[in-house]
């Protein structure tokens, strides 16, 4: 089995001390090591934001793309070479704000890939504006009188849009988080791991202690991840008791399974020169 240190990137993370993203990075490295997936067979795709700097801190192929666009890049790469382990990663602003449209459609397409969202309920890199998951009435730099909108519910949204593996973890529960990530990577289909990853600098509301007082583990309460209705009900639990763990898991053919162009193996291995151009040209006759 591979060692966690084999997945350490060229540079050390530059996140603020205490940032929840450290826990996410550790859990992901541990998951990859446990699954023994060689770094060169992994592609980590991110967008923009504090958490989207993650590809630089992990030893694997990486694509650090535009704000909100990690999922389409990851999808393109997966379709081009479906033998790669493709992991998209980013924050709540990146994935549920500017990239929300891609999130919805990626869920329903069921590509065999993993999406890790480091959800800190704030825009951190831009120094503390309200995000799509900021709770109502929270004062931020962009909402000095408190947020008016209600927050987006990533777990419920993913369930509705057809994601086949929907989990939520917490940076403070590293072992469970690593297991959720392992399950996500091993799962054949689109897996969301939404992670409570506290921003110690700009979110003074959803802090480590705040989560520790409220979270409970779904596996401790005999939640059945095969039960979609039960998963939906749990997804709407918020307030004094907030569930983390695996909400839902179902097997469904992946996009790659059903795409005719992939029947003869990964696209990247197909020859550039087609031998039937003359036959293709017949329609011009």
């Amino acid at each position, binding site marked *: 089995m591979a060692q966690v240190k084999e997945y350490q990137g060229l540079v050390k993370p530059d996140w603020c001390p205490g940032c929840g993203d450290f826990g996410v990075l550790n859990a992901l490295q541990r998951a990859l090591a446990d699954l023994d997936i060689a770094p060169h067979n992994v592609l980590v795709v991110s967008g923009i934001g504090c958490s989207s700097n993650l590809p630089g801190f992990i030893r694997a192929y990486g694509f650090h793309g535009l704000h909100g666009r990690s999922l389409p890049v990851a999808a393109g790469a997966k379709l081009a070479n479906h033998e790669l382990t493709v992991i998209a990663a980013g924050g709540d602003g990146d994935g549920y704000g500017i990239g929300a449209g891609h999130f919805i459609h990626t869920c329903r397409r069921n590509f065999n890939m993993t999406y890790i969202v480091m959800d800190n309920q704030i825009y951190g890199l831009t120094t503390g504006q309200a995000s799509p998951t900021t709770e109502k009435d929270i004062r931020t730099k962009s909402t000095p009188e408190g947020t008016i909108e209600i927050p987006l519910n990533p777990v419920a949204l993913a369930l509705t849009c057809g994601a086949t593996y929907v989990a939520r973890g917490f940076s403070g529960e590293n072992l469970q988080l690593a297991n959720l990530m392992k399950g996500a990577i091993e799962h054949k289909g689109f897996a969301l791991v939404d992670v409570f990853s506290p921003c110690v600098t700009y979110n003074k509301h959803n802090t480590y202690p705040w989560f520790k007082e409220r979270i409970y583990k779904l596996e401790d309460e005999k939640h059945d991840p095969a039960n979609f209705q039960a998963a939906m009900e749990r997804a709407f639990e918020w307030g004094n008791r907030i569930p983390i763990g695996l909400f839902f898991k179902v097997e469904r053919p992946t996009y790659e399974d059903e795409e005719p162009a992939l029947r003869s193996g990964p696209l990247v291995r197909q020859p550039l*020169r087609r031998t039937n151009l003359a036959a293709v040209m017949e329609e011009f006759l």
Partner: protein
Amino acid sequence: MSQTRAELSVWVGGAAGDGIAASGESFAKACARSGYHVFAYNSYQSAIRGGHVCMHIRVGRQKVWTHGDGLQYLVALNADSVERYAARVPPGGAILYNRDKFDVKPERIPQGVQAIGLPVMELVGNQLMQNIALMGALYELLGLDAGAFKGLIRERFAKKGEGIVATNLSAFDKGAAFARAHAQPGGIRIGASDGKHRLVASGNALIAFGAVAAGCRFYAAYPMTPASSILHWMAKNAVKTGTLVKQAEDEIAVLNMAIGASHAGVRAMCATSGGGFALMSEAVGEAAMTETPVVVVEVQRAGPSTGVPTKTEQADLFQLLGASQGDFPKIILAPRTFNECYSMTIQAFNLADKYQCPVLLSSDLYLSERNETFEGLDITNIPIERGEIVTEANGEPYRRFLDTKTGVSPRALPGTPGTVYVAATDEHDPDGVVISDVFTNPSMRAKMMEKRMRKLDHILKELPEPELEGPKDADLTLIGWGSTYAVLVEAMQALNQEGLSAKGGSASGGKVNVFAPRALWPFKGEATRRLLERCTMTLAVEANYIGQLAKLIRMETGLAIQHHLHKYDGEPFEPAQVIAHARKLLKTKPKESTVASVVSDEGLPPDFSPIAAPGSEAVRVH
């Protein structure tokens, strides 16, 4: 007596849903199979039913460059078409229509023109057969061998059974018999063809075919007129060609998917029109910054904003030039002909791979959507250059963005052992480590900018040299790009012919040549300056309002084009419009710079209001 010509034009006009494209394309294809050169341009509107559609089919014994200026035969599927075009039918020509649907008033029929109304119900017992019956009558008038057209009927309806084939063939024959019995042979006919089976397709089909020939295996798109037919062609041929075709949720996802696929090593392309390209813009810079090859086709339509979705224009050059923030290397190619749609798409993939940057291939509705005969596509010696790819680690630390003489760094594909790296849209060093946040470093930043921008010097050497077509010592040089090139060639040929046949008291009074660059960025400014400095008088002909190519030339050469002819009414230039303007300039030789514009005559009064004439075709009398 009928006169025999080297070419003729048939217009099929009606409402959307009348099956005009199907009959028009069948006629065009049949002519191509019978050895004629064909050019078919469908002028249509953004309506699935109703609206006005007119397919212009020009058939020639030699190459026909454009849809031309006029018609000899009108197949009118509604009264509106008669109102619009009947007056333009010359003596010897004919108007064919279904007299069950409407009458053609005698005062609408020009002198010497036959109006032939088919009693479709009585003839074939089914109004759905009107197009085929009218085609039968048309063939009879033209005296053309109907074998090729009948062959197409058989192919088209084969799946529906022998009965349907027979019904359609019979409708065709009955239309022909009616014309034989009740009409004079057509007064204008086309001479015999060389009998060679010619290929016919749309410009978009040739761009798509070029992509497949170049080894493109990933095509992403969001539907947008007039680029959608590339998506349709790719999807229809996906299984046969082994291409993965992905329709995405928007154009932002489209280009990001293509970049992702290309990053993983597959040749990838996407296509859109101006509005979709605006959404793609940010990702154009992403491709350049991550040094990912990608080909983006921009098929221009009339803007701004949603504009006129089914009409042509060339007003997106500045959008292509300016797309995405910051300075970065990109390439803009603008094919002008069908053969270039094919060959320059292949070239686009090679340049993208060699220089690891985005290549924008510009087309426009008039080039992309018309059907035209073509020949000479080389499908056996296709150049494929993938650029430098690292297939295994050499023991040294791999530096993905290594600073090199050409600015191009050997690329490793994800999955290769020992060469892991991050491709970042943030500024980064040769190792791929971002230097945007905590490790900012002015000298490294400058070095990486220079590394990327250096590619442009090398790209420039690979692009075609600017050249003049036609006589070197011309009195007037016509300048244009994209689809306008074909119009300029036709105008040049006509004007030079006119000059030759009127020696002494020359009608136009001079020789004409053409300058139409097909590589627009990076721009060969110095070579273009040398070429244009020798020109006596210059006229830029562009389907836009501000003369974007002329402005680019001025920016890159310091030379101002003297005269400008613009068109922004949505319809392509007609050769006669260019010829008339060129003639005027050659005669008057204005000292001052001039700017003029032309509008196509669609038979509508300029102040025509759909409110004043709600839905009724009968009131469109003017």
